[in-house]
């Protein structure tokens, strides 16, 4: 493990990171079925406080900690550099402090102004915990999104926690495919059942539901079913659906891929998924934030990474209604081409308009098409 010499200010606060510490809200994932989703930092009540000087001291410490990283992580495994960590630090502060106080407090932390240092600032978590989680961010490479308990994705702010894959920026484009390709060509698809398989935080299901709704001016007939095998994902997705008031549109079901969808076989208007697609051998070499903290269940796609994608293609051939649309995220060009070949050779005459779409980094990322 990487050893960093870091300025120690609060060794005592969070001495051993390997043992779940009651001061942190990052305990290991509970294996029980009854998972209670955690409240993201920015939604917690501001029932704690610190003086401005205490907050400044923490900020200075946190900034130095971030600066000490330099480009170490970049060189190690393409992780974050200091610039990115400084930006995350600002976002952590934004989530910690009430919005109406941002404009006075945040500039003060950067300035050398010594006035009113004993003024109290309301915080959404105790400062000791914030010391602890920032240390985890840097020393353990705990993903920032788990630290603040949320991920900004498209125009949504989704709760995330250990055990749930953090939605990626690339995946945002699946919703554009729904709007610009599926609904543009076949507006009638907006009504009827859609499925988001392996929903994780519920990101795709929630954004798709909002897109479908805006196409029919209301909820009339829009239905999305989100499935996931993981009880944590089911709990988190359900809570995100409720936060966006979509409980009448999005239904979260527990189970593997199409297994909980037997009642809508052959009736689906659309199927979307970001399934695990990383080849098993690559898992151990992943960026620390991913490999050490995110659920392997959501990442490992078997020996060539394509096991689950093939299963999904087999599934849509029978689960979609004629004219129905599908879009899947993949590991990149090679997998995309393999899937297109598979569809053409193994499922002749079952689909039309099969296309590969690249993400904004120019990597061929999605395979999509319509059922004949």
């Amino acid at each position: 493990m990487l050893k960093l010499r870091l300025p120690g200010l609060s060794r005592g606060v969070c001495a051993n990171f390997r043992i779940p510490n009651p001061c942190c809200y990052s305990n290991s994932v509970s294996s029980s079925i009854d998972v209670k989703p955690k409240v993201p930092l920015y939604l917690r009540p501001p029932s704690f406080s610190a003086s401005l000087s205490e907050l400044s001291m923490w900020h200075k410490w946190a900034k130095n900690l971030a600066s000490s990283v330099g480009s170490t992580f970049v060189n190690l495994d393409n992780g974050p550099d200091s610039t990115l960590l400084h930006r995350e630090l600002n976002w952590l502060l934004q989530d910690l402090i009430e919005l109406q106080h941002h404009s006075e407090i945040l500039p003060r932390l950067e300035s050398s102004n010594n006035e009113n240092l004993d003024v109290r600032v309301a915080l959404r978590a105790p400062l000791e915990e914030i010391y602890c989680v920032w240390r985890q961010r840097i020393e353990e490479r705990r993903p920032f999104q788990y630290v603040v308990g949320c991920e900004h994705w498209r125009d949504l702010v989704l709760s995330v926690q250990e055990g749930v894959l953090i939605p990626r920026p690339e995946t945002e484009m699946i919703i554009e495919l729904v709007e610009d390709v599926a609904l543009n060509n076949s507006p009638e698809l907006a009504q009827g059942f859609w499925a988001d398989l392996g929903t994780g935080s519920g990101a795709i299901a929630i954004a798709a539901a909002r897109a479908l709704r805006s196409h029919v001016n209301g909820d009339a007939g829009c239905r999305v079913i989100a499935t996931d095998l993981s009880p944590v994902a089911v709990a988190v997705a359900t809570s995100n659906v409720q936060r966006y008031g979509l409980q009448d549109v999005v239904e979260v079901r527990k189970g593997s891929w199409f297994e909980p969808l037997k009642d809508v076989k052959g009736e689906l208007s659309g199927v979307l998924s970001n399934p695990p697609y990383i080849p098993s051998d690559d898992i151990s070499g992943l960026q620390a934030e991913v490999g050490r903290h995110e659920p392997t269940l959501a990442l490992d796609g078997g020996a060539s990474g394509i096991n689950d994608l093939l299963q999904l293609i087999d599934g849509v051939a029978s689960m979609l209604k004629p004219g129905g649309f599908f879009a899947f995220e993949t590991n990149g060009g090679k997998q995309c081409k393999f899937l297109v070949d598979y569809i053409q050779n193994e499922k002749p005459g079952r689909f039309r308009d099969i296309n590969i779409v690249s993400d904004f980094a120019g990597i061929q990322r999605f395979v999509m098409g319509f059922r004949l």
Partner: protein
Amino acid sequence: MKLSQGFSRCINLLRQFQVAKSYPNPCNERSFVLPAIPNIFLSFCRYYSTELQPQVSSDLLKIMEQRLVAIEHRSAFLENFINQPEASPTEYSKANKELRKLRDSMDLISELRTKQKEIDGLRTLMAESSDDKDMLEMATEDLHKALEEEKRLQNLLLKSLLPRDDADERDCILEVRAGTGGEEASLFAMDVFKMYERYSQKKGWRFEVVDIAESDLKGYKEASAAISGSGVYGKLKFESGIHRVQRVPVTEKSGRIHTSAVSVAILPQADEVDVRLRNEDLRIDTYRSGGSGGQHANTTNSAVRITHFPTGITVSIQDERSQHMNKAKALKVLCAKLYEMERSRLHTSRSKLRSEQIGSGDRSERIRTYNFPQGRVTDHRVGITYHAIDDVMQGENLDVFVDALLLQQEMDAIATFSSAQ
């Protein structure tokens, strides 16, 4: 205070028009507003220097009356036309469209005509009842009210007849760039950017930082913001240009005064429809370091860069927390830039335009100097100097300049209006 500020603004403006020169005592406000001076600028100017109902000069009234009659005729002709069954659907809808455009003016004109009839009636009544003291008194009072009302309507009409910039009501994008002067210019760019931020807060506008590129000393090499609220572009548009600063930089050991400059651009906001943005003209990409992306990478960096092929403009945004929001912001900035290009293309192809009369409209024109040792801010276009520089930097009294520039714009428009007859 307010009165005399407005007054001094007028004086400065009048100086530009060479009117004040002929006036013996420009400091005497009472005589200044005497209606004896037959000058359309001067009388219109009263509107700004006092709280009284403005008096449109008789010259201007004559010109306006001709316009009003023309509008009345045109409107009557069109009404008549659309009531004829033989009008073709296209002719009909064309005429109807023009009528709708005239409707606001026509409503005001008929209100004015009613008022003028009332005034005639009152005058007749007064002539007839010169013996009845009570009646005379009552009629005089009514006449006074009616005349005030007439003036109000005339002013509204004049404003509605002046050429308008359709972009005035739009939101805007503010861009501040450090120019010559290195670190000091960057520090001043930050000061100017924050001046507009405070000014916007004071106005109740929404000020949203789009992007900031910091310099080594935490100044701003370049900063942009989206400002939204009522009439934002119309108020801020004359802030575009070079703002010059004279002061002892914090970096200067020997206490020598430096001169540096920042450039400010105010662009009206536009949407994708305004600029006819086509997907095939855009390339959207991330500029992250390589790697497989997707599930392999967990990054909070969702920066987006948009390239517009036909113009070569690129916009990069990185400070939002999702890629979608970065992209939306980048598109907003791109649209504003394209819209501004289209506008300036139209401007140069047209004849002399109002906005060009205030300064050259050239971004490279030096418009204002902030002199810290002397504690003053001078706007070179209206020739106004304000002696509380800290207030200005705090966004407190920027209105001194904003209002003067708007006033000058209006006076230029009146000049164009009357010379066009």
